[in-house]
């Protein structure tokens, strides 16, 4: 979904809803609200919420449609409907949630789920860095802001400033909470819809494979190197022979990561000093 993403998916992985283009800058300028005289608390809240809502409309469209697909596929894979709202509330990571459908509907263990989620979301460990400053003074809200930092929320908050007169921290919190509410509504609606269908639609779970194909195409466009794909192919070949279908994904993944690590020198030949700081 992105992506996660989906969610919650990296912009370069293609699932992020369209973020404002350069030409739309005026739109965001236009919606800036002049700082008014000290207003009452509830008026402040309304101001913040309306600014946050307008900023988050692109995410609204993306999260509702991708959430709908998630809920539909989840129920179509034979999983109980309540898993969709539960995951939207507590996991809130699109690509990982989509991956989780296949693993949970199959026979994957908790360890496999944890490891794959870790790899799927490893990007968060690095790109959250640029939010360190923005969230430094968030106080009590910080834990939620960190929890809800999906690719799309990250994309919005690093692109758009809070309008004048609107408290920065409240704006961040409102955008984050609104985005999660869109995701929650999309996932829940999709699950309800899937549950209401008179019969199980055969073959709908192929949407998962299609999603991963899309993400793979995006990866191939972004990562101009053959090593990760060779590592994956070799890992898959070995696991195909050596492992049961149940253990296929885990074993192939471990082999692929090992091979990838061995090829690290090839992929990152003598990086210039200071290149790492430019994350």
């Amino acid at each position, binding site marked *: 979904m992105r992506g996660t993403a989906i969610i919650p998916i990296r912009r370069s992985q293609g699932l992020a809803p369209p973020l404002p283009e350069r030409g739309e800058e005026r739109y965001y300028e236009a919606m800036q609200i002049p700082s008014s005289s000290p207003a009452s608390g509830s008026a402040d809240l309304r101001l913040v919420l309306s600014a946050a809502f307008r900023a988050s409309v692109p995410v609204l469209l993306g999260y509702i449609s991708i959430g709908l697909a998630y809920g539909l596929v989840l129920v179509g894979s034979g999983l109980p409907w309540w898993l969709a709202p539960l995951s939207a509330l507590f*996991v809130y990571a699109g690509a990982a949630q989509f991956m989780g459908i296949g693993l949970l509907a199959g026979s994957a263990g908790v360890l496999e789920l944890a490891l794959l989620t870790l*790899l799927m979301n490893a990007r968060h460990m690095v790109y959250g860095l640029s939010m360190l400053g923005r969230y430094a003074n968030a106080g009590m809200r910080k834990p939620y802001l*960190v929890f809800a930092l999906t690719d799309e929320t990250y994309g919005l908050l690093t692109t758009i400033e809070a309008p004048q007169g609107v408290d920065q921290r409240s704006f961040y919190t409102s955008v984050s909470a609104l985005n999660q509410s869109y995701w929650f509504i999309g996932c829940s609606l999709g699950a309800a819809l899937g549950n209401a269908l008179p019969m199980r639609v055969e073959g709908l779970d192929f*949407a998962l*494979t299609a999603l991963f194909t899309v993400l*793979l195409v995006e990866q191939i466009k972004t990562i101009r190197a053959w090593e990760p794909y060779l590592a994956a192919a070799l890992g898959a070949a070995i696991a*195909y022979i050596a492992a049961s279908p149940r253990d296929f994904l885990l074993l192939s993944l471990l082999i692929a990561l090992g091979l990838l690590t061995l090829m690290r020198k090839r992929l990152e030949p003598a990086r210039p000093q200071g290149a790492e*700081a430019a994350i």
Partner: protein
Amino acid sequence: MNRLLLGTAAMAVVTLFTRAAPFLFFSKRKPPAYLDFLQRYAPAAVMSLLVLSTFRSVDFGSAPHGLPALAGVAVTAALHLWKRNVLVSIAGGTALYMLLSGLL
């Protein structure tokens, strides 16, 4: 049901860990270069394996010899290269897969 709850809890904890990591560990020092390497190149390998794992359960020996899945993946990729619209790619590939599975 317990497995579903436990699995979802694991995903929730790990996801939160990845999002909290920069704030917990790297606010004072630089993240290790290996982590940067991994977050850059691991997703490409993971996606490849997730697509390949679909074919692990396909029986190529008997009709329709995995044709619906192969055609579904190929059309999804082609649609995405052409239009680059996520929903169109997924809907097109899935529809073709469902159609071929029913026909063949």
